[in-house]
């Protein structure tokens, strides 16, 4: 059967209609809502860009933006570095690869709510396993109220997030590793490329596609993190774990300032799109160069 332009368009129609209904239309409605002063999910008068002006001067939004960026940088760098390290180890350890790969993916299969409660328990300052281990090791100075201290709460949440998705990241790197032709690796070995030299000259350039995927996924995931701070700390203590997504939720569903919350959501969307496009563009160029 030859596909004509008309029949192709018709075949695309259902998916396009659904996409338009559930993605394009809500996005347009959201932007329109953000230009009003609506306090509910309906109604409100047109106020132009007032909500956006207010957001750029709102200390809560600015603090949440800072938290989100710090969180994102830490998660993206650490998660990718560790994921790459694990993938390197598994690539060079075929005996444990299959079992380890299954185990690595298990945390990512868990519900975020379950992970939140699990890590809240681990971090508990009274009878929590983490402090108990430190106590047993004589590291009393490192015992702390991980989620109760403004200095540690955000990073404590970042660790939970990385624990959940580290295996996912490692698996993508490992898949890329396994797609590298064996004869290329053998040739490199014959030429004397081993260890760090092989990684720098051979592995790193050839892992460019998985780096693009992992960096993009972890960046987007981190920028819109909501569930873990919401369940584990409710944005506290002293707003130290408030992220942009959390502020959107709080403004919309707790303060009932739906228009303002939507304006912050639109800003988050714009930031995510810009960062996502920039990352993809830069990393894709690197892929081509490699």
């Amino acid at each position, binding site marked *: 059967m030859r596909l004509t332009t008309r*029949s192709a368009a018709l075949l695309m129609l259902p998916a396009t209609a659904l996409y338009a*209904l559930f993605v394009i239309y809500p996005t347009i409605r959201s932007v329109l809502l953000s230009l009003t002063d609506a306090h509910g999910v309906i109604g409100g008068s047109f106020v132009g860009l007032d909500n956006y002006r207010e957001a750029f001067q709102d200390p809560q939004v600015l603090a949440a933006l800072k938290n989100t960026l710090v969180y994102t940088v830490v998660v993206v760098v650490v998660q990718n570095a560790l994921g790459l390290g694990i993938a390197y180890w598994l690539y060079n350890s075929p005996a444990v690869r299959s079992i380890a790969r299954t185990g690595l993916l298990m945390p990512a299969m868990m519900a975020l709510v379950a992970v939140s409660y699990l890590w809240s328990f681990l971090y508990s300052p009274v009878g929590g396993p983490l402090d108990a281990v430190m106590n047993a090791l004589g590291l009393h100075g490192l015992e702390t109220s991980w989620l*109760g201290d*403004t200095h540690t709460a955000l990073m404590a949440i970042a660790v939970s997030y990385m624990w959940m998705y580290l295996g996912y990241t490692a698996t993508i790197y490992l898949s890329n590793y396994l797609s590298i032709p064996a004869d290329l690796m053998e040739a490199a070995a014959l030429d004397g490329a081993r260890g760090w030299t092989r990684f720098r000259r051979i592995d790193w350039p050839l892992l460019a596609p998985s780096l693009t995927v992992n960096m993009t996924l972890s960046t987007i995931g981190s920028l819109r993190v909501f569930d873990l701070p919401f369940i584990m700390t409710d944005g506290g203590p002293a707003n130290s774990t408030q992220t942009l997504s959390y502020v959107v939720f709080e403004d919309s569903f*707790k303060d009932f300032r739906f228009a303002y919350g939507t304006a912050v959501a639109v800003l988050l969307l714009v930031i995510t799109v810009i960062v996502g496009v920039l990352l993809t563009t830069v990393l894709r160029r690197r892929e081509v160069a490699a």
Partner: protein
Amino acid sequence: MRTRLRRLTTAAAASAFALVLAACSSSSSGTTADGKTVLTVVGFEGGGNEIADIPAINAAFEKAHPNIKVDYKYVANTEYDAYNNTRLAAGTAADVLMVNKDRLTTWQQQGFLADLSDQPWVKRMLPNLAPYTQVDGKTYDFVQQNIPIGLYANLDLLKKAGIKQVPQTWPELISDLKTLRAKNMGGLEIPNLKGWDAEQVSLALAANLIDPSWGSGYDKGTSTWAATWSPVIDHLKQLLTSGLVDGKTMNGLDPFSQGVSQFTAGKWAFYVDGAWDLSHYQQSAKFGFTLNPFPGGPAGGKPKTFTFIGSGWSVNGASSHKNAAESYVDFMSQPQQDSAYLKAESCFTTLTDVPSPKVTQSAPVAAAFAAGNTSPSQVEVPNYPNSEDKFTAQLNALFNNPSMDTGALLKQLDKEIPKTPSKK
């Protein structure tokens, strides 16, 4: 081939259209196959850890109203706003909605709730609770629970520490906490992850230290946090800076899981908590305990308690089964149902003709209530829907840094909790 392709695309388009229609249509047809009216009810109690005897009450309602089938949906409190707001906006929300003060204010302002001022139970409400059910003088919900929150005391631990009675004043409480600390025993537990328990302690202190009319003047602009609440914050600071309470450790403990289990395990002498946990302690605690008014006043005074105005029932203004919905709310207010609900929740009555359940362990707090040494929760009075969350966030910050300036903290509360609700 072309015909087949055309059929295929037509079928695909039809499927998509059907899917769209299904997504847009209401989830309830309104009647069962045998002609019964389906009354949809949504609540943040009646499931999870708080059954509140609702399944039995619903079964009794269906028996009393054979033409109505109750379709009860439990939605956890954390998801409740997200669940209902979109449905209210789309016109597909439940016929009867469980509400609390902030949801009542918000949804009424958006025109979603029916005026229930003419309902028979309105005249039976306790007069001091009526303002919590009203907006602009009209009644929009039947508040079903007035929850005592006070000081749970582990009597066995106190006895072991040589403390003969539950403290009655602030100096006595401080003295007892010092005694407990000297004997390396747990004193006052304030599990404060997300700021909840510090809020309860503050409201208990406020019952002793702040004029009960403070809240009623807030939206009129005649009272502010900055002008009045410094004694409460200073009392908290005393606990935090003297080492009697470790704020950072408490900020890392979840009150609803770790806090309750810690107290149940007998590790703490005192814990400020609501009556809803009373039955849990009755079943699980292996020590004697009482629920008491909070000893927040000066030497020689009597301890006072406060109550949290809890959940109630509203009718969706757009309900197509308004009469059935009103019957349901009225049924909830009837003495038999109301008593069952109150007993399950261990809370005080909100009606003139229904007695509060008697529970041995909560006799001290009930006596204070009967003697008038009580006030409704102050933080529920301002009409700003999120006032409670703004308050807890500041207390969470105080526990993290007890040296923070009291005046600055209270001024921030005045800024974050607007004095009049927006009606836009």
